[in-house]
């Protein structure tokens, strides 16, 4: 192997996907996929958070801004949240985020939220593979026009939260 | 109600009375059946043994034609013959389940400017009668209830196996319900969906005849005076080889083997000739002698 190992397919486009998985269900499921030796596409990079409720929509924007082609969010199944309702909060923010992204011209398939329980290693495999295939068809994600979070006007973020919140995000 | 109809080769040959009685009955029930234009053989069981992909391609062409006929609207294709029903169902499923099948068949269809995107719902005519027409409407339309018949409902294999979306794989009930609705009494018996021997009756008669005989014998033992079938090959085997079976096993067999649609037709008041009953070897009137 050369020092600069290229992505597996040099000729084709290999999407880069960042996954935010909750510690209790989806991260455990992806560990299970590992211990069960389920082979899947190598394009995802998992970032662990304690709860899908921690996933700030700005993480997703920043991830795309940094050059990722897709973002996968994973949380416990409805009703199974380790912190009671963090996954619902995630879902509400996600819905708003999707609308926002659509306005930015980001294709629907690039950002995906999945409920994957700790025992569902096979779903990690399936969802990852599916997503990689979908994004492979879409090609690179270009999100230059989004300002970096640091420079983002506070009011805009505020709006985002307020709408999503409705008092109870 | 309006359906696209796939007769298959047997219903134009040895199983003509199935088509005659089914179309007549549907007409009487106010159901429109339109024959799929330019259909071809489904491939049946034999083709699969020679070339799997070609067998799939044969069946798929019909689905492609049906989908095109629908012109964007959802299409239901009714296949009364069990073998056709299975072949059409199978290619539909395998195209979706196996990439290799999906790709090969799509390419093959494309070579003749055809395509199939999975938009056809394939259904057995029993399924349509039970679940679309419904027992309520049937009860309304029945004017000649057939109280004299103790019917052994014989579904054969491929209507219920392996796909059986509308009935049980070994103890199907849809035909039983249908028979009850026309006033006949279905008998409870364990061989409703056991194999009749298929083409073995012709190719290895010692084996095939025995399988058909087992079905017939059990139907008699359970007190049936008529056997109703849903498959042209089953009907052919049980009826046309009956005299041969009689000779082979030293029994006087005289069991009328009809299509469920013929009994339904009678109950709807359709004349025997329109139901193709004259085409059968064992006349339906012989039944009284058996029970």
């Amino acid at each position, binding site marked *: 192997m050369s020092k600069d190992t290229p992505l597996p397919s040099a000729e084709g486009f290999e999407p880069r996907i960042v996954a935010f998985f909750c510690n209790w269900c989806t991260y*455990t499921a992806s560990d299970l996929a*590992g211990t069960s030796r389920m082979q899947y596409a190598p394009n995802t990079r998992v970032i662990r958070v304690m709860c899908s409720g921690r996933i700030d929509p700005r993480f997703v924007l920043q991830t795309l801004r940094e050059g990722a082609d897709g973002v996968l969010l994973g949380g416990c199944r409805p009703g199974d949240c380790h912190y009671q309702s963090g996954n619902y909060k995630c879902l509400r923010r996600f819905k708003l985020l999707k609308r926002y992204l659509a306005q930015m011209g980001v294709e629907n398939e690039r950002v995906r939220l999945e409920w994957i329980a700790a025992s569902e290693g096979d779903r990690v495999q399936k969802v990852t593979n599916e997503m990689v295939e979908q994004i492979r068809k879409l090609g690179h994600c270009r999100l230059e026009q989004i300002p970096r979070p640091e420079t983002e006007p506070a009011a805009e973020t505020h709006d985002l939260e307020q709408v999503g919140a409705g008092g109870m995000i | 109600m309006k359906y696209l109809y796939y007769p298959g080769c047997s219903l134009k040959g040895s199983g003509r009375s199935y088509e005659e009685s089914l179309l007549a009955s549907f007409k009487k029930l106010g159901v429109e059946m339109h024959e799929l234009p330019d259909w071809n053989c489904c491939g049946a069981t034999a083709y699969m043994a020679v070339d799997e992909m070609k067998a799939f391609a044969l069946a798929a062409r019909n689905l492609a034609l049906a989908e095109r006929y629908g012109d964007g609207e959802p299409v239901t294709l009714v296949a009364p013959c069990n073998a056709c029903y299975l072949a059409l169902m199978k290619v539909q499923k395998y195209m979706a389940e196996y990439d290799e099948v999906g790709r090969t068949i799509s390419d093959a269809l494309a070579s003749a400017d055809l395509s199939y995107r999975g938009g056809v719902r394939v259904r057995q005519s029993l399924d349509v009668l039970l679940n679309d027409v419904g027992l309520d409407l049937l009860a309304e339309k029945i004017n000649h209830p057939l109280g004299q018949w103790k019917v052994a409902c014989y579904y054969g294999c491929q209507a219920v196996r392996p796909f059986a979306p509308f009935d049980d794989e070994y103890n199907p009930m849809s035909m039983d319900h249908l028979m009850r609705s026309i006033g006949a009494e279905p008998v409870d018996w364990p061989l409703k969906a056991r194999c009749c021997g298929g083409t073995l009756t012709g190719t290895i008669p010692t084996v095939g005849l025995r399988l058909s005989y087992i079905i017939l014998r059990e139907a008699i033992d359970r007190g049936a005076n008529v056997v109703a079938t849903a498959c042209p090959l089953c009907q052919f085997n049980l009826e046309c080889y009956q005299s041969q079976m009689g000779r082979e096993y030293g029994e006087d067999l005289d069991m009328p083997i009809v299509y469920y649609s013929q009994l339904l037709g009678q109950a709807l008041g359709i004349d025997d000739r329109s139901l193709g009953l004259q085409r059968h070897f064992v006349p339906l009137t012989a039944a009284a002698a058996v029970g």
Partner: protein
Amino acid sequence: MIMHRKSPEDQPRIGVYVCHCGVNIAAKVDVEHVRDFAASLPGVVVSRDYKFACSDPGQELIQKDIREHDLNRIVVASCSPQLHERTFRRTCADAGLSPFFFQMANIREHVSWVTVDPGAATTKARALVAAAVRRVARAEALALRQVPVRPEVLVVGGGIAGIHSALTLANAGKKVFLVEREPTIGGHMAQLDKTFPTMDCSACILTPKMSDVKNHPNITMWTYSEVDEVSGFTGNFKVKVRRKARYIKEELCVGCGDCVDACVMKKEKVQVPDEFNVGLSKRKAVYMPFPQATPACMVIDPKQCLQLMKGKCAQTCVDACERAAVDFDQTDEIVEIDVGAIVMATGFRPFDAKRIPEYGYGRFDHVYTTLEVERLVNASGPTGGEVVLRDGTVPKTVGVIHCVGSRDRRHNAYCSKVCCMAALKMAHLVKERTGAEVFDFYVDMRTPSKGYEEFYDQVLSEGVQFIRGRVAEVTDWAMTPEEEGKLVIRVEDTLIGVARRVPVDMVILAVGLEPQVDTAEMQRRFNISCSQEGFFLERHPKLAPVSTFTDGIFLAGACQGPKDIPEVVAQAGAAAAEALALVDRGHVDIEPNTAWIEEEACSGCKTCIPLCPFNAITRDEEKAIAVVNDAMCKGCGTCVAACPSGAAQQNMFTDEQIYEEIEGVLAYV
């Protein structure tokens, strides 16, 4: 308290250790390449690869580097943090470094084990290592929080698993609450006649333990009760138990049975199937499940009692009870308890044989399940221990069928483990009681435990006919005169290679074990996980078999997977020991991943307050800002994600740390 040698203000001096994990990682990931790559990352002072980082020499190597190279941040790229994060944190702490200056990159479960192509695996490992390096540079020195632990333990389920766990804990001096859904403890074991392989009478060995539970000063036993709600966390669970109305005052009832005799449901046709006898006998509205039921207390079935259903009955039971124990006005009562640990012992459910219609259960009278035959052969069962069929005859030929619902991808793909021995026991008992010719149809005979193979050998020598083959069908279709009126078992004798038809009078289905029907609901209530088959999921199949992913909740018995009695008892003891280890220590360490509010940045908008599932955030009206109560915060971070002004932050998961991680996974490809 450990003195941290390094202050967080120091420039990061990072050590990276890329683990081979034998060949588990090294066979797929080019570890040397990743090592060299890591060395090029900002702040990295030392980068090494090592055969087994978690081994003693591996840990010593890290500690030596910390001392010699003055490292203040450590990254280990190896397995999942679920497995060894604690190990390496301790390594750091022992070398005088804050354990929270450690970061793990999961390049085994997330990379080498799931990736086909070595090149792609190496690329992915690089990204994860870069992310860990970037993140650890922003790590902060934190201290573990210590929370006191309550000494009481809740045991859920009063079968043999729950009984054994409760007794073990109680004997160690801990206060135990034992909650059982049925009117009596005892579970499935109470229904069994004999227990394999020694054939001890099940009741004889179980009932003493049942009365021990009842009489133990440290055990509070609540039968006919269910857990309604669980909140809190390890060491401090708050549990709401619903004590269902029995309509009998437990403290007054002596179990004499006068009310049962008096009950107006005298005719059998108005009576209901007796659950304890698996429907083989009938019971009235007021009943006791079986004579040794514990507590020896009646219960009135509200779905059958005329008074309770229609408000109209002669109430003969009330008149008959000299102690005035009948109480139609009773209602469900909710009791709240605080416990430090919970042992789940909720057991299993037998496979419903009707789901395999080919075997005719429910269609043919003479097809039974193993559990039904347990009751038939039991001396206190519905037939007084005589094996007679539903038509009153004694079977002359009996077929026992293995693997009913098990090893079957259409139903349960797993082996239920106990059925081979249960079937052998049935074959032995039925032959012993009736002298019948017994045929045993098995797929693979599985008898791997102490004394089990010997039992198989005994049953073989008793003349039971073993046929290796899975039965396709039980039918009343007769082909020969001998088959008329019998049940015919159709099977291939696979050792001989011929199809056989075996006519029998009685069929016994060795049904498998399934998760309880409400496992999914329980899983939610207790916030634990289930495996794909639906049994509760253990933390690690080998090394943490009775722990769950939720600290403080442990698993005992068949709720975790099929088990026989010896195994259940062993596991129940282990679960009790784990619970004991927790509550006995008196405190638990909690991750310092709580949220906090940066006062200057908080606008006082109150967005976060209703979001907190634990009511840990309040508003300081004077300062007009939000305040997080550290003791109540469980560290989910939901408030942090929602804070419009970025004032809320989460320790160990600050925005800054996560942005570093995002850049880390993307920037170096």
